[in-house]
């Protein structure tokens, strides 16, 4: 395991010369360009796939198959006049779009978008590739608190949405931002708790190390992906919480067109609206990347020949990344929208307790092999106790929820007001 950890990006370990600076600049450019290009494609794919699912053609005018539609939309939005409502708080109103858009870009910095994670001849996995004579991670920045940065960025993005609605000086955006605040704050908890499970099994916060852990040989034919190692549940919790966190249907309450017109961005136009739009679709890309990294092994995958070996990591990464945006488009085409209280119920009464219980159970199971202070192997007995405790807690929680609901219904019947 020591080979996995404590290394850091070898690029910056040695002497900083022109090649290193060039590589860093190149990686910065890539990390900036990839999300942007993918976002433009994502918007087009979303409109095309959604159109196909609902018996429409979708955009087909700008460029072949309408692929340049996003560019056309962008050009239009960027040249329009940006209106500021009279009652808006002008400073905050202008600031909010950037609070949404900048974090969306930042997340990609810690995501390994490639690298050779196959074991070297000496059995170690370092995930480096050699470019311009320097060994390097295909990742802009392997921060030690790595994955926490993802949480930080998604938390900051909440401020963008919240302040946009609040500063618009209008009622519908206000309702949208109130919804957004409550929704994002509560799903952040579920998001964080399911992350704990990943960190627990991988033993590191660094995204590079999490991928390297998943590149280890798994049991039998199964890969060592966190999806399997953490027992599927954290994956689903993270996936659903991420859907809610970035306001994708069926959790798109903050901009529910049929209820709040356009929610928090009702009063926004031109480039400021475009920034929200970009931030929202970029979130599907970055969260797809984060989920692929955390649960599906990111760039870890076999070298199948044909292409140069170092490129396979990138290929695998983007293949895995593409799964999630597609599922989100699928969601949008099929699922009705949740109601505000149902959304809160799902978050607080199901997702958070579920991931809490799962962490306890996972920790207890994983501690089975450790040696306690008395020199004995701890074994599975604590796990059984914890399991029983979690089950009991679940039953009690369910009972209390049922009682609460019945009380509410009775109260509705008795008192009119």
């Amino acid at each position, binding site marked *: 395991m020591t080979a996995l950890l404590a290394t850091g990006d070898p690029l910056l370990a040695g002497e900083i010369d022109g090649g290193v600076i060039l590589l860093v600049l190149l990686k910065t450019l890539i990390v900036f360009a990839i999300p942007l290009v993918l976002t433009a494609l994502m918007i087009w794919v979303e409109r095309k796939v*959604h159109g196909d*699912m*609902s*018996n*429409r053609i979708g955009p087909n005018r700008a460029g072949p198959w309408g692929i340049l539609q996003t560019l056309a939309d962008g050009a239009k939005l960027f040249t329009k006049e940006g209106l500021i409502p009279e009652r808006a708080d002008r400073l905050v109103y202008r600031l909010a779009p950037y609070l949404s858009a900048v974090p969306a870009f930042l997340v990609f910095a810690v995501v390994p978008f490639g690298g050779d994670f196959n074991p070297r001849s000496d059995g170690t996995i370092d995930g480096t590739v050699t470019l311009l004579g320097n060994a390097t991670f295909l990742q802009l920045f392997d921060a030690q608190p790595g994955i926490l940065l993802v949480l930080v960025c998604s938390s900051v993005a909440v401020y963008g949405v919240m302040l946009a609605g609040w500063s618009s000086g209008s*009622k*519908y955006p206000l*309702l949208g931002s*109130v*919804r957004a605040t409550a929704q994002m704050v509560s799903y952040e908890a579920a998001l964080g708790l399911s992350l704990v499970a990943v960190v627990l099994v991988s033993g590191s916060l660094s995204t590079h190390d999490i991928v390297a852990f998943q590149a280890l040989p798994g049991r039998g034919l199964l890969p060592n992906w966190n999806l399997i190692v953490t027992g599927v549940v954290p994956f689903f919790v993270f996936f659903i919480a991420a859907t809610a966190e970035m306001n994708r*249907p*069926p959790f*798109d*309450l903050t901009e*529910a*067109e*049929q*209820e*709040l*017109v356009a929610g928090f961005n009702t009063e926004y136009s031109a480039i400021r609206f475009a920034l929200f739009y970009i931030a929202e679709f970029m979130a599907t890309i970055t969260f797809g990347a984060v989920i692929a990294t955390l649960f599906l092994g990111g760039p870890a995958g076999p070298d199948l020949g044909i292409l140069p070996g170092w490129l396979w990591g990138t290929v695998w990464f983007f293949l895995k990344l593409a799964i999630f945006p597609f599922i989100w488009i699928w969601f*949008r*085409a*099929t*699922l*009705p*929208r*949740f*109601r*505000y*209280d*149902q959304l809160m119920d799902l978050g607080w009464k199901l997702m958070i307790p579920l991931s809490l219980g799962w962490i306890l159970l996972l920790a207890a199971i994983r501690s089975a092999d450790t040696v306690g202070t008395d020199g004995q192997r701890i074994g599975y007995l604590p796990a059984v106790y914890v399991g029983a405790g979690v089950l009991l807690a679940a039953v009690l929680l369910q009972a209390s929820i049922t009682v609460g609901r019945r009380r509410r219904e009775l109260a*509705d019947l008795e008192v*009119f*007001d």
Partner: protein
Amino acid sequence: MAVDVKGGGIVDTDEGAQELTPTRKGMEAKELLREVGCVLRLSEADAEALEPGPDDETMIINMGPQHPSTHGVLRVMLELDGETVVRTKPIMGYLHTGMEKTGEDLTFLQGPTNVTRMDYASPLFNELVFCLATEKLLGIEDDIPARATWIRMLLCEVNRISSHLLFLATNGMDIGAVTMMLYGWREREEMLRFLERITGLRMNHNFIRVGGIAADLPPGWRDEVLGLMDMLPPRLDEYDVLMTGQPIWRERLQGVGVITAQEAMALGATGPILRSTGVPWDLRRDAPYLHYDQLEFDVICGSYGDCFDRYAIRLNEVRESIRLIHQIVDMIPPGDYRIQDKKVTPPPRARIDESMEALIHHFKIFTEGFKVPEGEAYAAVESPRGELGCYLVSDGSAKPYRMHIRGPSFFHLQCLPHMMRGGLIADGVAVISSVDPILGEVDR
């Protein structure tokens, strides 16, 4: 109408303030009663005791007339406590074109052209009810050829399907299942294409005329309509998969916008709204018109009076209409498609070329119209939205002295405050959607 500006610039009408009063302080119990939409659950004495509650914790918000889910130009003023709807006031009149008044200036022959634009989602029912009332005044209702009557029924049932498909589409969209909107539109388009083949127009057909219909069915209509009826059932099953069994869909609609049978009847609700409460009231069965008494069909009923019942009723009424159409197609007899009464029917086109009398007759009918005996008549049909009635008064001239349309959507709108109270905004959207108001019919 007493126009008086009260506090807050609220315009008063003789039915109370037109808009929601911004503050509940000093509001009369009667007014409060009306605004909180609990006409039937509280006595006025109880309303007197009703604590208005703090004013500064609520927000008044305008939904509409330009809002994605108010189905046209309905304006709903909401008083919100957080997201909870406290008071609701539907305000209408944004689509008022004075059609009832216009009707008094058009001859009975021109009447259907006017009324067909009222409920634009089910235009044939408007024409039908106007023609039924006129025929009653003329005393020819028993002389309408059987073929005309059966064709009227065929067209109306196709129109009912297209109207319900429109509801399914918009209801899906309002709840957030956007794909459903396109699905519903797709099937509705097929129905409209069929109606266009028959009547020449997709909407506002002006096809049902006094004394019969405008033209005979074109060749090949039978295969076309049967083809449509074969196409629909699998699509409806698709809707079931997409919506009916969907847990989020059920959660969003079940127990939302509940109204009881007693309340619905007191508020004048008919159609799917009344049937959702468990009252099996369908004019096709309970006050048969045309030849509905010869057909076999079920009246679809709900039991909870919630949005889900109203959705399920309409979905299943489409299935019932398919059943009806299968029967109607076999029943259409050969014969005339309009009454051979020289008074109301213009001579055939071929006769005009050879007979001066026919030409004069044709000219007179289309310039002056035909005179209708003095009297009054009321006819009602079961439109997709409920009881659609037409009240006509004739003073013996060729134009109605007074025409009044009882539009079901108008009555259903006044159920809104009652159904929306205590729900969230999202519930309000579901309720408006499940009422399926057509504003053209409300404002007339």
